[in-house]
């Protein structure tokens, strides 16, 4: 597979990643580079390994027994292999945050949801928390709607607002990479548009990797796109190139809707 020439700085390099759920191999020899402060989209039909791959980036698979990684993911600038058994997954998750498919706010107040990541990092000073919470909510475009009810439970928010709250929660701790796992699949078109807008705005601050079922979404928000199929990366290139002039037959068939 030929990697495109990536001019922007590299945030993470994935080399020969194999992943196994028990004895089932879910990812085969995945190679990818993730460009710093750009949006990388992962597309492909259901079961192709997009989400599996995404969850390797913050070692989410460590939570369940029987999962196994091979290969390496080098996190720049210091190029540590975050898959190495000597690296604590907690450390990885401190730097690589995640937004899930369905909004999953904690049954706490809006404020406490955003502050939680800071609290577990030992930040308890009210002034700092207030400041960081406001900043995170502003970055997630939720401040105006939430500022008057920060202490209401998060369930009083609508689905789209809840998802933005989850984004704010992930942003509050200043992660280096933000992972999105189909963040709009449970939302209506208006809420989806707001999240997409947000993703585009956020790439100035943070490196983003987004898994999406929706090809138009990948085309709208991403700078680079990887097309995955059966646990392998079939093609990885600039988004424009993938959607206008893919070099692989399979990619072309997928993006033109002939399968998947």
């Amino acid at each position, binding site marked *: 597979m030929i990697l495109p020439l990536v001019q922007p700085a590299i945030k993470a390099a994935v080399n020969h990643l194999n992943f196994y759920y028990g004895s089932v191999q879910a990812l085969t020899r995945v190679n990818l580079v993730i460009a710093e402060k750009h949006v990388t989209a992962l597309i492909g039909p259901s079961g192709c390994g997009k989400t599996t791959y995404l969850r390797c980036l*913050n070692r*989410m698979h460590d939570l369940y027994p029987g999962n196994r990684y091979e290969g390496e993911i080098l996190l720049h600038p210091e190029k540590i292999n975050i898959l190495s058994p000597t690296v604590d997954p907690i450390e990885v998750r401190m730097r690589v945050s995640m937004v899930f498919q369905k909004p*999953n706010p904690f*049954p706490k107040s809006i404020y406490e949801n955003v502050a939680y990541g800071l609290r*577990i990092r030992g930040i308890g000073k009210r002034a700092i928390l207030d400041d960081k919470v406001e900043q995170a909510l502003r970055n997630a475009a939720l401040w105006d709607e939430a500022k008057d009810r920060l202490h209401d439970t998060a369930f009083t928010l609508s689905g789209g607002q809840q998802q933005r709250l989850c984004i704010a929660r992930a942003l509050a701790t200043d992660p280096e990479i933000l992972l999105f796992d189909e963040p709009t699949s449970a939302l209506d078109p208006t809420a989806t548009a707001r999240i997409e807008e947000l993703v585009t705005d956020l790439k100035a601050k943070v490196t983003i990797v987004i898994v999406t079922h929706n090809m138009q979404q990948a085309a709208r928000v991403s700078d680079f796109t990887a097309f995955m199929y059966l646990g392998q990366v079939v093609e990885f290139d600039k988004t424009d190139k993938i959607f206008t002039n893919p070099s692989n037959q399979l990619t072309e068939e997928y993006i033109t809707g002939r399968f998947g």
Partner: protein
Amino acid sequence: MLTGSLALTALIVSLALNGGPRLSWQFLTSYPSRFPEQAGILTAWVGTTLVMFVTALSAVPLGVGAAVYLEEYAPKNWITDLIEINIANLAGVPSIVYGLMALGVFVYQFHLGHSILTAGLTLALLILPMVIISTREAIRSVPDSIREAAYALGATKWQMVKDHVVPYSTGGILTGLIIALSRAIGESAPLITIGALSFIAFLPHPPWQSQFPYVSFQWLMDPFTVMPIQMFNWISRPQEDFHLNAAAAGLVLMGMTLAMNGLAIYIRFRFRKRIRW
């Protein structure tokens, strides 16, 4: 179900008809006596309250701890399967067997005496399986998406458990605990086995004192009686009037149980309203 509620109603009506006239402030604040009209249940309800307090205080940390361990920490293998089966079986062991074990362990081995402490620990063992099972149920109802959300922010397992799993299952844990306690409150067999008195004309030491450190634990080692044993004592006497006392005590015990169940329903309702997934 209809039969059940009919039976319950009949029971309450018959208790109320017999015991109702005996219920008075004097009945609640008097020591037992050999004159039925002067006898009261003061020692019995104080004993019951103190025993329940010890039971709750020892069953909660053990039961919740065990449940959290089994659900969140323990690997899933044949040993934990075995433990699980054992817990389910323990819930069905007759209570008198717990009494015999407590007599051997707490009274003869640890020399805790025929005391409130022994009784509380015995009943704690009795309800422990129920507390563990209901706590596990409550913990299991916390969705994995919440666990993953906490982990994704960099929480350790312990932080995830103490900040999320346990607080969100508090409603279920409390409900299970209260239901278990309302079973324990009516137990007499294991307490008779460990040597609870059936006639006692003095109260345990008060849990407070006038000098430093102001709290006293002397009461833990005091002899005691509880409501069902008091009832049993009265019902086994030949005088008809004592039987009325027993009915009145039964009414009070019934009221305590129903109040606890009501509290459980209220707590469940409150927490359900606050947390929905």
